[in-house]
């Protein structure tokens, strides 16, 4: 297995001279599921946004399959085979479901067949395709967001807390779906607060705190690490299991 996405000594932030991420290193193996965990405000979303080109990078590199993609324009992501599911506001509420999908599919050559495939993957979306996306339930919104990200058959999916705010059952379904993507060859970098659940499905795990790498290792090892269990799995915040 080789690394498909590599992040080396990355520094990025919203305000000049005030980096949120400091010397972050990370590599994601091809067709694996890598999860990033860490406390609120650790910089997990900032890391994903820096990869996507939404946050300016001041130092370090992002490499995709050997090519340097540091500081790309966000609209170029799709062409590189990257897709991104933001943590919040990840669908266009005022557009219908069909319009949301048509928008992301407009550069896809076989858009009609792809649309059918996506509807087959997410039947609830097909049933409501003429409705405004803002009228969807939480789980259906995440479905639409994932469908939009999948539309261009990406090589790499960046997903920021896709299970946040969902009921435990739906959250588990979303994580299973994420897992199943890797079986189809998609590489996934996932940010999660549902630490226990995420570690069960993930291959590898990075822990980020205060914008720096804290710890990383195979998900199973992290899950059984007594110190991690103490800090991240014992607290009431993770009582989801």
């Amino acid at each position: 297995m080789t690394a498909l996405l590599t992040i080396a000594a990355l520094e990025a932030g919203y305000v000049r001279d005030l980096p949120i991420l400091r010397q972050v290193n990370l590599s994601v193996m091809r067709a694996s599921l890598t999860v990033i965990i860490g406390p609120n405000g650790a910089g997990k979303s900032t890391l994903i946004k820096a990869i996507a080109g939404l946050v300016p990078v001041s130092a370090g590199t992002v490499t995709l399959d050997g090519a340097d993609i540091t500081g790309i324009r966000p609209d170029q992501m799709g062409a590189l085979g990257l897709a991104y599911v933001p943590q919040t506001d990840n669908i266009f509420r005022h557009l219908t479901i069909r319009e949301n999908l048509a928008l992301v599919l407009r550069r896809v050559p076989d858009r009609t067949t792809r649309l059918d495939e996506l509807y087959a993957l997410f039947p609830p979306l097909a049933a409501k395709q003429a409705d405004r996306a803002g009228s969807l339930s939480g789980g259906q919104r995440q479905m639409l967001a994932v469908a939009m990200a999948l539309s261009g058959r990406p090589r790499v999916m960046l997903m920021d807390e896709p299970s946040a705010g969902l009921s435990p059952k739906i959250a588990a379904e979303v994580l299973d779906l994420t897992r199943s993507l890797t079986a189809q060859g998609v590489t996934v970098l996932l940010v999660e607060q549902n630490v226990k659940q995420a570690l069960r499905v993930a291959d590898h795990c990075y822990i980020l705190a205060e914008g720096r790498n804290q710890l990383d290792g195979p998900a199973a090892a992290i899950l059984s690490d007594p110190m991690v269990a103490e800090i991240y799995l014992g607290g009431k915040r993770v009582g989801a299991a």
Partner: protein
Amino acid sequence: MIGLISYLAFFATMAGILAIVVLGLNLQWGYTGLFNGGVVAFFGAGAYGTMILGGRPEPGQFGGFEWPFLFALAGGVLLAGAIAWIVGILTLRLRHDYLAIATFGVAVAFESIARNAEWLTGGAKGLRGFPRPLEAAIGNTFVYGLCFLAMVMAVLAAVYWALQRLVQSPYGRALRAIREDEVAARSLGKNPTRLRLQSFVIGSMIMGVAGGLYVAFYAFVSPQDLAPILTFQVWAMLIVGGAGNNRGAVLGAFLIWGAWTGSGFALSKFAPAAMQLYTGPIQYILIGTVIVVMLLWRPQGLLPERITQRFTKTASKVGTTSKGAF
């Protein structure tokens, strides 16, 4: 010689009055980040208010109460403040550009009233015959001109001094904090909307003071004096001088007023007769160009604000490039 001195006194009086307006705008825009698109209305409210309360009675005309100058001036200033308060209450809690639009609207509405409500404002011909303070006592027009200049300079100095005190106090720091980062200011327990409203009203009242002085100077006011170009001139003065710096505001007022009168004089003297009709537009283009070029080339003005260099302002820009909604 006397002619030259009178002319210089005339020039300096007008520049001083405008400098007071610019100081008022500096409190709003420079220190609090509030856009006033209708400077002329607040200036006009001070002018008409003072005229109506302190002017001589005319048949068929409301007003002409012959109040003593200071009382009439206070009335005009309160009128300017009241208009600012109403506009501010309605717009300051909204998106920042609502204030810009509403104040621009105030100026348009004010001009409509000045032109049409003849019973109140004299309509297009305006109101005349203001008893200039102490004119009878001093007598000599030349000496009176100099005395009036001294009074304007005294008021300018007083406004300058008061504003310096204000902006250097904790209150002034709170205003700047709101300008730079409303969320942070709120989390420090400041009430941004109330502070903004206060700053807006005080700034507009200062403009009203200048309007009152203007009426006392010319003893006359008409819609012609409230042409929208005045708003642009005052802005150009502030942006050339340096927003957020009271010395810059005063400097800008004298510089731009000098450039304005100078260019008007040069055009009327040297431009071909056929072009005389177009001296106004040429001067307007110059003012517009000064505003745009300064914003592009040196947005901090000739005398930049010293304290913070607007660090957070440019900095927060980075965050808004991608308009992070997530």
